[in-house]
């Protein structure tokens, strides 16, 4: 059964990649030129990773550019966070990637001879409400409004709760079509964590897949995007990078302080500044306090082993992280991700220095 399902999802993935690859291609220039000189002995080395799909466009670009500059082959399979953690614990990859920080029971399964699991954030990402509504370009959604849309209690666009914050906008009487992810995903996890905090009437909890009280399910960020583009009156949630690439309209959301914040990388970065960083970097900001912060933000992590059998891999991984925290920033911004604040990046590099060769 496992083997049977994998080709189908891979198929969808390849498809989505070709579909979204086009728009990202041109941004290669500047950062490739400034990258570090090739590391000695790095050529011909192959490193393998697997995990989260949400940061995949970024990782793809990062690893591609790093490979070109250093001659180290980095293969990354975006099999999903859950599968990424599983493969990491089973030692079938050199690094894992996940959208939700390692849990205690997962840490307990970590193979002892590899030292400890080192979990470092690579980038921040944020989730937006994308919609398709003619003549409405700057939709504002209060907490009441988006909670009502998500749980199905608000059914039409001209509902009084929505109209209240959008004075002067001609909202149609059309039904609202809520579009959510049907597959398990880190994006859903980030989104529902915020909904759980922000909406008092939300009963479905939070996780990679939840029991949605209303709406249509679509597979993958690309599926949700297509669904929104196809349907007048549709609204759904996707990663900012996907919405941006497909030119979807995005709603401004009311944050905890009561301000309406438009979804921009700057506003999203504000959710992460000044947050206290625990030792395992498992920062979670389900409902950021800052006045100018965009509310639905999360980090995504790489999982590394403390001990590697191969010294060349250790060097390559250290170089990769150094490169990503510095030269990789421009790529991240280009693609709509949030580069880590400097103080966090410094801590990440200190943590990555802890990996070493030998069992």
């Amino acid at each position, binding site marked *: 059964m496992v083997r049977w399902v994998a080709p*189908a999802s891979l198929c969808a993935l390849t498809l989505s990649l070709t579909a979204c690859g086009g728009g990202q291609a041109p941004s290669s220039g500047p950062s490739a030129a400034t990258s570090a000189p090739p590391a000695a002995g790095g050529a011909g080395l192959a490193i393998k990773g697997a995990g989260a799909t949400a940061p995949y466009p970024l990782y793809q670009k990062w690893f591609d550019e790093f490979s070109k500059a250093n001659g180290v082959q980095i293969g990354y399979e975006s099999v999903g*966070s859950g599968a990424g953690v599983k493969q990491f614990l089973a030692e079938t990859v050199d690094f894992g990637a996940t959208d939700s920080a390692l849990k205690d029971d997962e840490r307990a399964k970590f193979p002892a001879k590899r030292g400890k699991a080192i979990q470092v954030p690579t980038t921040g990402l944020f989730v937006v409400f994308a919609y398709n509504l003619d003549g409405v370009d700057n939709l504002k959604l209060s907490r009441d409004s988006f909670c009502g849309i998500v749980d199905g209690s608000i059914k039409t666009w001209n509902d009084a709760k929505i109209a209240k914050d959008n004075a002067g906008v001609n909202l149609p009487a059309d039904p609202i*079509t809520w579009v959510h992810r*049907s597959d398990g995903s880190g994006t859903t996890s980030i989104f529902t964590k915020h909904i759980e905090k922000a909406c008092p009437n939300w009963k479905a909890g939070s996780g990679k*897949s939840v029991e*949605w009280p209303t709406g*249509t399910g679509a597979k993958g960020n690309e599926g949700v995007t297509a669904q929104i583009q196809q349907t007048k009156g549709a609204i759904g949630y996707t990663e900012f990078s996907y919405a941006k690439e497909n030119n979807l309209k995005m709603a401004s959301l009311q944050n905890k302080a009561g301000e309406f914040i438009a979804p921009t990388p700057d506003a999203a970065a504000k959710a992460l500044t000044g947050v206290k960083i625990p030792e395992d970097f498992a920062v979670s900001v389900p409902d950021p306090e800052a006045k100018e912060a965009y509310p639905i933000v999360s980090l995504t992590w790489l999982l590394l082993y403390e001990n590697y059998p191969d010294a060349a891999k250790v060097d390559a991984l250290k170089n990769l992280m150094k490169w990503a925290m510095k030269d990789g920033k421009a790529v991240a911004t280009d693609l709509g991700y949030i580069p880590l604040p400097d103080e966090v990046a410094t801590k990440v590099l200190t943590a990555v220095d802890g990996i070493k060769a030998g069992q």
Partner: protein
Amino acid sequence: MALSNQQVTEIKRARSPLARQLDSGFVWLTGMFAVGVALVLVAIAVRVGWEALPAIQQFGAGFLTSSRWDPVEDIYGALPQIYGTLVSSLIALLIAMPIGIGVAIFLSEDFLPNKIQRPIVFMVELLAAIPSVVYGLWGIFVLIPILRNMGVALNAGLGWIPLFSTRPTGPGMYVAGVILAIMILPIIAAISRDALVAVPPELRQASYGLGATRWETLFKVILPAAFSGIVGGIMLAMGRAMGETMATTMVIGNANKINPSLFDQGSTIASLLANQFAEASGLQISSLMYAAFVLFLITLIVNVLAELVVRRVRMKV
């Protein structure tokens, strides 16, 4: 002129030992292939059942009647998916069966000169070669906009009928049914045509000889004679429809609910698996395996029923 027993043994003796060994080797080899395929099926069933065990212990038969699928609380039931699987394949069959058999009849009679008939046969069979993800994409971008408009009209005019009682928003059970119908059409058409062509020409000639018209011959002689082949094709098609994953997932709407309206969203067992397998863990995986096992059983039941139908009709004929 029949050969006597002695002559037969003489012919056998005349063959070299090598040839005989090759013969028996060939029988063994093909036998192993046949058994091997059967073993693979058993192995898959056992494995799926084994993985499903925790969920079977936890939910028992309640899994089949509960309609909650909540990975957060770890409560699972697959009724909406079972319902969706059956309804979507039923819609597909209702559309594809008459069309497919019609196509098969048209292409097996001599209505058209061979030159025109051949390309049409080929094109119908080519429908089966389109990857299902392409069907899904075509469904999203071409079929849904067309069907939605028809659906909105139906809902406005005939909304009092439960089947049309919700306003279509795009994806839904009806789109899945139509897509599946197109996907299984070539299977029904091709196998039915083969069955019709394989009916011995003597039957047709005898029927004409008794003074039957073409219509009578077709419906009273040819179709009954080809019946078991046609039913076989339909069952194969139904199996395909129930197990189809990618295209269904892309157009059915993936909502965990049961609604008599065809315009509402639903989900099937296969789409549930495709959606949740990658990121599932623990009890959720077992429950997905349980659902897969149920799909297995449904397909088995459908095939057994089909076999019974075929036998019954054969006895009558």
